């Protein structure tokens, strides 16, 4: 489209403002984490990594971190298997109600997270299931499935079925076809989906509030500490650690999958 120079300049300026708006708060929090003072104000006079040490040696933070990692890994594993299966099923087979299945998958993220959380809590209550790491995992896996699904189906739509047919025609067993043809085509999409699912689980707090009982995942610890207004310099350090721990899998996922499936739908 032919746009005047002025329009182009205005759009570019606006884009820059949006990027600054999106990054400024993150910059603030990262800078504060390196300040020595108990009170968070600019300018920062004494730079230090002291609070990172405090956070790392805090047993409450440690056990919360460990719970988050365990739950995230387990939820990711479940989402990996179920998300890949459902992507295959929807891509390969035409059946009655196929559209409703894709709708069903998006439901945990299209409906408010608090609905998913409360629904699970009601069901656990009714069936007498006590809150444990397993209830956290069940909640996380449910909304992580769609992330893996999105990644795998995006890749499946771009690859051709004829390769799989050719493999069978040439005498390969389904297992051989799966191992030697299908998996190499999909592996990066599956790994990217898993990384995103882990990042999502690691950061989740709303559903977790309703499925954790008295346990603390790392986000729940952060939420509690902010609410009480205690240990705030330590919260800064933990929060920066969480940002890093979520961003590493995201960047790797973006690299290996050339950005497919990183969109909004997965990130709720």
């Amino acid at each position: 489209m032919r746009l005047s120079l002025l329009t182009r300049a205005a759009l570019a300026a606006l884009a820059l403002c949006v990027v600054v708006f999106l990054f400024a708060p993150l910059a603030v929090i990262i800078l504060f984490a390196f300040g020595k003072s108990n009170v968070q104000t600019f300018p920062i006079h004494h730079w230090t990594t002291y609070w990172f040490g405090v956070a790392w040696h805090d047993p409450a933070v440690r056990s919360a971190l460990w719970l988050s990692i365990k739950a995230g890994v387990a939820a990711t594993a479940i989402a990996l298997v179920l998300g890949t299966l459902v992507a295959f099923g929807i891509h390969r087979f035409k059946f009655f109600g196929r559209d409703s299945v894709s709708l069903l998958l998006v439901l945990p993220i299209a409906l408010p997270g608090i609905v998913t959380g409360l629904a699970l809590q009601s069901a656990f209550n009714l069936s007498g299931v006590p809150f444990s790491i397993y209830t956290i995992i069940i909640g996380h896996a449910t909304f992580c499935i769609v992330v893996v699904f999105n990644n795998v189906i995006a890749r499946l739509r771009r690859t051709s079925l004829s390769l799989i047919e050719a493999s069978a025609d040439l005498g390969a067993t389904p297992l051989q076809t799966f191992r030697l043809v299908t998996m190499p085509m999909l592996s990066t999409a599956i790994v990217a989906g898993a990384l995103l699912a882990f990042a999502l689980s690691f950061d989740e707090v709303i559903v977790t509030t309703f499925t954790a009982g008295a346990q603390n995942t790392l986000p729940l610890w952060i939420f509690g500490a902010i609410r009480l207004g205690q240990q705030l310099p330590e919260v800064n350090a933990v929060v920066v650690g969480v940002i890093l721990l979520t961003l590493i899998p995201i960047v790797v996922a973006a690299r290996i999958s050339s950005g497919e499936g990183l969109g909004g739908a997965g990130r709720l």
Partner: protein
Amino acid sequence: MPVKEGIRQRTGAALWRRPWLRGALTLSPPLLWFLVIYLSSLVVMLITAFFSVDSLTGNVIYQWTWSNFSQIFTQSVYGSIILRTVLMAVLVTITDALIALPFAFYLAKVAGRRWRHLLLSLLLMPLWASYLAKVYAWINILSNKGVLPDLESHLHLPITHIAFTNIAMWIVFSYLWLPFMIVPIYGAFERVPNSLLEASSDLGAGSWQTFRWVILPMVLPGIVAGSIFTFSLTLGDFITPLLIGGSSSTFIGNAIYDSAINGGNLPFAAALAFVSIAIMAIYLLLAKLAGAFEAL
């Protein structure tokens, strides 16, 4: 040929000839998960909304009653909570759409290739960075001794007192959900072929006319997709209102959280969740009536 190999190949052939069997084997584990865990939980919650709680013992009384709903619809406090939540969701959705539209347009159609890639990868960080980190950052910015008042006093500007108000809520919600609006709108812009824009201007349309009559109808599905997220995220949040908002910032999410976690009244929380599902359903229906799904 070894016997084992033969069996494997025969199983393979048998499966190949019966696609329904393969389909059933592939789809049943994920569908069972959704049916047994997710959908049945939703049903349990919806039924729980019609139970009540014994005020003495705190136990759930499994007896059909409309009392939760009549309480929600007759007590004015819940009316104003629902109204406040919906208004905030609408306001945040409009704000984010107004920011995201020109930004995504610039990204998809104006910026050069390199610049676009850089901006897109920059977008990943605010999109995926920890939700609590972002909320916490805004507490530090807006609070009375925060970065913003500090900056204003240094610049000798009038100091804004927006900490713990609904204006703060509006800013923070708009900030939090903006990337969720940008991504689908950008995707929609990307699907508009450049040749169409050229054709439009060849036929004599000005930039604004092209935008209004060619681009906007084509990106509408993207806006609707983004608005579903902004709407549902606002409806379901209780953390931002608790940490950023003030005494007049009770949203549906807070009411649900308070009755379920603090009040121990699961049936009432379920009834409130019922209301937020209904609001989402009405919103989707309106979007459908407006024809926003036709191009999806």
